[in-house]
């Protein structure tokens, strides 16, 4: 049984990426008046930049690896696979140089957090965007 379950998840891994064609929206608090290049977004999510242009503190909110929007974001914006990003963070964490962004489990949670904190930046499925946040890029 266990083996079949593993096999199924392997198959799912192979099939799922082809099914995702949703756009990823990069979102911030409506009061945040910035524009960011994909490279800059990537640097914030990799912990290389800790502030927005202009100096305000930037705190990225990640979604769990299992979310399809996370795979889209990793591929299109960071340009790395989930396992490459995982290896990158294990290097940073175990050298005591930082910790990965806080992870949440749904687009709704990201929306909720970002609509109430001007320091946060996150990404969600572009079709889920609501009024409480500002979209600064779609990929």
């Amino acid at each position, binding site marked *: 049984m*266990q083996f079949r379950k593993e096999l199924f998840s392997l198959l799912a891994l192979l099939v799922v990426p082809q099914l995702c064609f949703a756009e990823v929206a990069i979102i911030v608090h409506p009061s945040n008046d910035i524009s960011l290049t994909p490279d800059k977004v990537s640097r914030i999510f990799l912990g*290389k930049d800790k502030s927005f242009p202009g100096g305000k503190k930037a705190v990225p909110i990640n979604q769990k690896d299992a979310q399809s929007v996370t795979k889209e974001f990793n591929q299109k914006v960071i340009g790395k696979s989930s396992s490459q990003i995982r290896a990158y963070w294990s290097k940073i*964490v*175990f050298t*005591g140089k930082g910790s*990965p962004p806080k992870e949440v489990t749904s687009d709704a949670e990201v929306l909720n957090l970002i609509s109430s904190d001007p320091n946060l930046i996150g990404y969600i499925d572009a079709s889920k965007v609501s009024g409480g946040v500002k979209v600064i890029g779609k990929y």
Partner: protein
Amino acid sequence: MKTVRFAAPLLISLASFNVFSAELNLSGFGTLAFGSVIDGDGYIAEYPNLGVYEDDYDFGQETRLGLQGTAVFNDEISGTVQLMTRANNDFDIEVEWLYVTYQYSSDANIQAGRMRMPVYYYSDFMDVGFAFPWVRIPADTYSLDVTNFNGIKSNWNFSTGSTDMGLSIYLGKEDNPSDELMSYLFESFTSNIDREFEDIIGVVFDLSYQNFIFRTTFTQADMIEQQALLFDPFAATVEYDIEFIDYFFQYSFENGISLMTEYNEYDPFYKSYFASVVYQKDAWQYYFFWSQFDLDLPFEKHDTTGIGFRYDIGDGVALKADLSSMNDEGFIPVDGGPNIPNPVYHADDDGDGDVMVLTLALDFVF
């Protein structure tokens, strides 16, 4: 499949708890490694903790588990502890690191306590198999007997555009009573070697720009060595002024190929270096490496050529295989006679030291 089942529940990323007012982040890493000598007598796979493969499938040389906890007291102060247990040290639980960090600005901090000696590029995460492509960091090159120190370290980061730079300066000392590696290497004339490293002072500079990484370190110290001589009732004390310098380069091409090389000189003892090519395609990485250890005196000289792969089974778990072949050229020079082979692995029957070893490993982080 059993090991996968065991690892799967550990795939929670960082667990966070609140203890009093501090936030505690827990994370961990581990490696299950099975090595087998297919040709020859023995292979030293890990020098600092003396992991030596001598037989068929041996689980007890490079298998290890680490747990790291960081208590974040506020935006400025945190405390970190790393505990490790290694099969080749009888699974004793050891405090690998224990330090406090004072983050006095967003780009600078100072750390005090017990930390890794950051002499090599991979020093800080050399035990975290998941963070690199090979089964092991090329062993000939990562052979320094001292890996941690007690002291202080000051770190600064600078960024201009997409160039990131870091500078660290560290000061401290380390005692290595009954130095396991040295006592093994020199067992023909000593029953025990104690080493003390005093007045350690070192500097690290690293730079990354797009797909390019460069890192260099320089360290000096006074080393006091106490040898318990087998043929002499008195212990001999020898003092050395040591200097260690290291260079590392890496370039990653867009097509998935990465090249990395590292070179170091440990004055007045040896030079060692390695080069590797890694090709990544989806969840697979394939690698080739060559590494060499070259003592200034003829007694120890060996190089290893290896191939292998890494397959990422899931987020946080990787399966690896490695086939390494070591060539041993160390010898004892004899005036007017033929030189006597002096392989680094001592119980070598034919004396040529050459060995081939196959290793399978499962690396995970949680």
